[in-house]
């Protein structure tokens, strides 16, 4: 292979929210065992397949319901919206994609931030939503994450981050890449204020989000089966023509290679996070 011919892409293609992970089938049909569920059944089961344990994706609002004591969540910065600094236009204008994503998800961008209690312990939360343009991180995701860090830093408290992202948002160009150091600076400041961060990686957490804040929790947890890789499987197999291991980039593989503190099934996530909040409480 000659130089200059070898190009690298690290962003995972963003998926429309109505697509399943492999792009086919109904979203409530389990890709693990083929069982089909009504939406309310699945929601009741925390969107974990009662048959085989497959963890379906969870949107930000529903994730907050699962994690936080009922009624305790107060959202912050809900009014922040992406600008279009590059007037980016591919097959459709970025501005149009943003409006559509907001209409489909009811979210202002790919992250919901705020404060809430988990088993009675107050914390800040930064919860990503893959449904909004593949959970891609642009200026708004970066800014909202940073503000969450700053709020946690004020009280020396803990930020709980739940990531789900295909990586940096191409439509914001180099400014999207700058959200990596921007969020990292905020975590450094948080740590210098004796605050802490618990990072929960959910399917998928790839590209620029894995290569920034998601990897820098004091404790890093993942849901079973979550893909967490810097480069997505498709890019790796296309670039290297390597045969990928079955569990390539999955939480289980990452745990084995020393990149995770624990894999936590969704049913135990709330209790685990609460336990950690207690451990990181400063007297």
């Amino acid at each position, binding site marked *: 292979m000659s130089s200059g011919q070898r190009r690298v892409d690290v962003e995972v293609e963003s998926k429309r929210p109505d697509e399943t992970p492999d792009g086919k089938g109904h979203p409530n049909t389990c890709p693990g065992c083929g069982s089909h569920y009504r939406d309310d059944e699945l929601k009741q089961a925390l969107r974990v397949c009662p048959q085989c344990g497959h963890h379906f994706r969870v949107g930000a609002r529903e994730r907050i319901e699962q994690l936080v004591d009922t009624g305790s969540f107060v959202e912050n910065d809900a009014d922040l919206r992406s600008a279009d600094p590059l007037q980016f236009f591919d097959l459709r204008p970025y501005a149009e994609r943003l409006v559509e994503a907001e209409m489909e998800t009811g979210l202002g961008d790919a992250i919901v931030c705020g404060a809430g209690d988990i088993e009675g312990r107050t914390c800040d939360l930064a919860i990503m939503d893959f449904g909004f343009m593949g959970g891609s991180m642009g200026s708004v995701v970066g800014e909202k994450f940073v503000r969450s860090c700053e709020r946690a830093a004020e009280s020396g408290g803990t930020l709980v981050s739940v990531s789900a992202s295909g990586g940096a*948002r191409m439509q914001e160009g180099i400014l999207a890449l700058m959200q*990596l*150091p921007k969020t990292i600076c905020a975590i450094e400041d948080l740590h210098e204020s004796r605050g802490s961060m618990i990072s929960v990686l959910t399917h998928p957490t790839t590209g620029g989000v894995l290569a920034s804040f998601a990897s820098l929790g004091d404790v890093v947890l993942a849901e079973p089966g979550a893909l967490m*890789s810097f480069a997505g499987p498709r890019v*790796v197999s296309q670039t290297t023509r390597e045969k990928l291991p079955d569990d390539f980039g999955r939480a289980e593989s990452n745990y084995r290679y020393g990149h995770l503190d624990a894999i936590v099934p969704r049913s135990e996530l709330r209790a685990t996070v609460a336990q950690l909040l207690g451990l990181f409480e400063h007297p």
Partner: protein
Amino acid sequence: MPNEAEMRLRERLSKLGGMKLLRGTKLSGELARLQDQLDQLRADPTAEEIWQSVELARHVDRPYTLDYVERIFDDFFELHGDRGRADDSALVTGLGKLDGRTFVLIGHQKGRDIKERATRNFGMAYPEGYRKAMRAMSLAGRHGFPVVTMVDTPGAYPGVAAEQHGQGGAIARSQAAMVRLPVPTVACVIGEGGSGGAVAIAVADRVLMQENAIYSVISPEGCAAILWRDAGQARKAAAAFKPDAAHCLELGVVDGIVAEPEGGAHTDVDAAAQLLEQGILAAFEEIDDLDDDDRRRLRREKYRMMGVLASTA
């Protein structure tokens, strides 16, 4: 868009003008420099000019990190190995003297011939490379050596082993190490500034970019493949996400542009090195006299401001 570019530069100028001056800062120099850049700002680069930058940034004869190192630093001594797994030669680290001071140098390194390209993995580092970089950073911090980085990579290597070794975490931690560094730091994008693999060593007090370098969140081909579903649309993609130096300066992502010889850095490597050396020295002059804590705080404040929002409630 030329007017908008101008507006942004003016906005940065006015922001800087209104800042409280720290004891010892040279912000007045900074103002003069920005004014200068503003005055020289040509019309916004066209799609054609952007693509020319992409081609020059990837030119097979373009000078690489070690070409500059041998011309800029005296007594350069390369530091090898990450002390855990390997020595990744896609990323070089070392000590060298410039102007009588010892610097730590960290840079991606592409290969010149076929064999070296393979050895250096086309400048695409494994996590081992970023861990070696962190080791060099911690040596710099321990001894108060300022850090120069040279960024020139298509991206961090996207391979099975690289993922198993923790590519994402290594890139995140390398940035965090740069955020923490107590010493003055200058990053220079000298070729391809490809995504996470580039920013891993580009978080600095001053980020310079050579005139024909590119700095981007994804490669033009990658972007085209995803958004246009056709890698052949790379030119269109590049024109859309604007990885050229002028746009990076305009967006506040880099702090200065380093001129290249007419026709690109490869037409006269000695001259390109001289210009780069001048740029590096000028950048350090702006930050050397700052108190370590102030400098680190300003570094973070700079990144704090990156991004553009529609509503800034």
